[in-house]
């Protein structure tokens, strides 16, 4: 290289290539451990099942065939249940219902809890006091018990289920959001924005939210798996998602009677474990990804 054309600025400018966020994500993923890859692939698989359930499933969700308890065959890969519904199709539709409802509930819970938490952190007045004490009281009752009590009063329907679980779960989101936002609210740039005369919405969205994103994203994963397990447990108890909607918790309960025939027909006996494992696999996957994400963002290298 001739020294004549050398330009320091050009060299410096060249080194600093600006990467798109997709590229940066790829760089992060390349370094991700095996467990995180496993988790991500599983989650993508579930999303695929959720979105294309109509195309993958061989039969309809609540379509009833002539023969109940049909054995495994070409027509019914996993046989039919006690009402003559195709089990494989119900499993696939179950992905959409179970995961979809849990996702919706978690989003709602973050909208309520996160929003109120931010407001409480910014305006630390009587509103903060009232909300915090209220949340303390709600947290004093175990959420499954509380959900059971509310379902007894309002009756179990999908809408009630989503609202009840979302409101109960938002208390934990509120606590976390408020706690992390309190550290950011005292920063100078927030004060500057306030003096500039920005409105509450702007301060929440543009000044504080970007700075508390990593813990909230990790919490989203954890809360999702908690909500998912709660809804599955409620459905299993027969109080969550109601038939004929296909869902994994209900399927475990319906298929569990076959466990007693395990000695005579292994495939029949193990049927109940398929929806059960589907629930477990997703929670394990989400936990793996959250573990990796927390590791990435917080620099907690020594935890493991």
């Amino acid at each position: 290289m001739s020294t004549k054309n050398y330009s320091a600025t050009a060299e410096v400018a060249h080194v600093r290539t600006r990467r798109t966020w997709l590229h940066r994500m790829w760089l992060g993923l390349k370094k991700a451990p095996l467990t995180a890859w496993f988790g991500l692939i599983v989650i993508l698989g579930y999303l695929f099942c959720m979105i294309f359930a109509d195309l993958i499933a061989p039969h309809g969700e609540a379509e009833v065939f002539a023969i109940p308890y049909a054995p495994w065959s070409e027509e019914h890969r996993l046989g039919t249940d006690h009402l003559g519904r195709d089990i494989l199709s119900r499993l696939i539709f179950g992905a959409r219902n179970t995961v979809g409802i849990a996702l919706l509930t978690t989003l709602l819970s973050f909208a309520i809890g996160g929003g109120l938490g931010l407001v409480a952190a910014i305006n630390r007045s009587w509103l903060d006091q009232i909300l915090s004490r209220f949340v303390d009281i709600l947290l004093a009752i175990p959420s499954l018990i509380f959900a059971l009590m509310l379902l007894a009063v309002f009756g179990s329907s999908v809408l009630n289920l989503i609202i009840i679980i979302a409101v109960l779960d938002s208390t934990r989101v509120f606590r976390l959001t408020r706690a992390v936002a309190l550290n950011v609210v005292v920063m100078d740039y927030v004060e500057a924005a306030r003096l500039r005369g920005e409105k509450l919405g702007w301060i929440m969205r543009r000044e504080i939210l970007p700075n508390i994103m990593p813990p909230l994203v990790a919490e989203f994963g954890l809360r999702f798996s908690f909500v998912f397990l709660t809804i599955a447990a409620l459905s299993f108890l027969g109080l969550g998602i109601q038939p004929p909607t296909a869902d994994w918790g209900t399927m475990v309960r319906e298929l569990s009677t076959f466990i007693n025939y395990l000695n005579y027909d292994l495939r029949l006996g193990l049927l109940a474990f398929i929806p059960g494992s589907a629930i477990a696999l997703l929670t394990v996957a989400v936990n793996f990804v959250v573990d990796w994400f927390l590791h990435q963002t917080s620099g907690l290298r020594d935890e493991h």
Partner: protein
Amino acid sequence: MNSVLITVIQRLLLGLITLFFVSIIIFAMVAMLPGDFTQAVLGQAALEETVQAFRKELGLDQPAVYRYFQWLGAVLQGDFGTSFSGRASSGIDRSRPVLELIEPRLYNTLFLASMTAIVAVPLALYLGITAALHRNGFFDRLINTVTLVSISLPEFLVAYVLMALLAVLWPVFPPISEVRPGADFFDRLYISVLPALTLTMVTIAHMMRMTRAAIINLLASPYVEMARLKGVAQREIIIKHVLPNAWAPIATVIAFNLAYLVIGVVVVETVFTYPGIGRLMVDSVTTRDIPIVQACGLIFAGTYIFLNMSADIIGIVTNPRLLHPR
């Protein structure tokens, strides 16, 4: 010592206040009932007089504050009201008092829970401390992966796996835990093995991970390093230096997980059809038998609050820094 006593009393009062508010919430459930509720209980064909009498019994014709204190007073004397079930539209009342329904169930659940706690707590503490001492070793990593997976498993799946293995494939325990009248202690023990084992597996993972985290936290503190540099033996470091400071987090861990047990029994009792209070609550929610749901909810919430409060108090009492006021 004085300041410790004051803090303890403060915690007790705080617990009572929380319980008071919780009781208000639970009481308010009746007020939140939708308008068509009487029909749901008494049936579509209920006579107008029956409906009126029922509404009067619920006290819907009186102010809420008055009703609350009347209810609270009755509950404090152990009277939870009468069950909704057994009422017919004809007006003949075959319902039974809630207390009569709950009492034997509560005994069964306490039996199951204490059986689990006696096994799970020492085991989890032992595993947690061992894992913390051999951090990053093979044992630690194995236990970490196993617990992470078992935390993610729904309780009913663990229950069914155990049932399939120990009750069907290798039938040593009964798959259904029906308590027969006149069963003696060992019969009960035998019947409760599978539910208790399930609860142990579910709670032990949480408890072990939290114990491990608490101990690791303490092992990193300067005074432990100082003791190590002094040449104190590992055993002695644990017993003399780490444990006195670890009681507070460990008490929290235990209380938290015993409280978790409260939730776990609901699902596990349903799987094994164990006649406990958890299954009673689920059945009552299905039939919308509000007085029973209220009583069960109050018992569960009260236990939960009591456990958390005791953890706080143990943490305060065992904290060596608070025992020597400056």
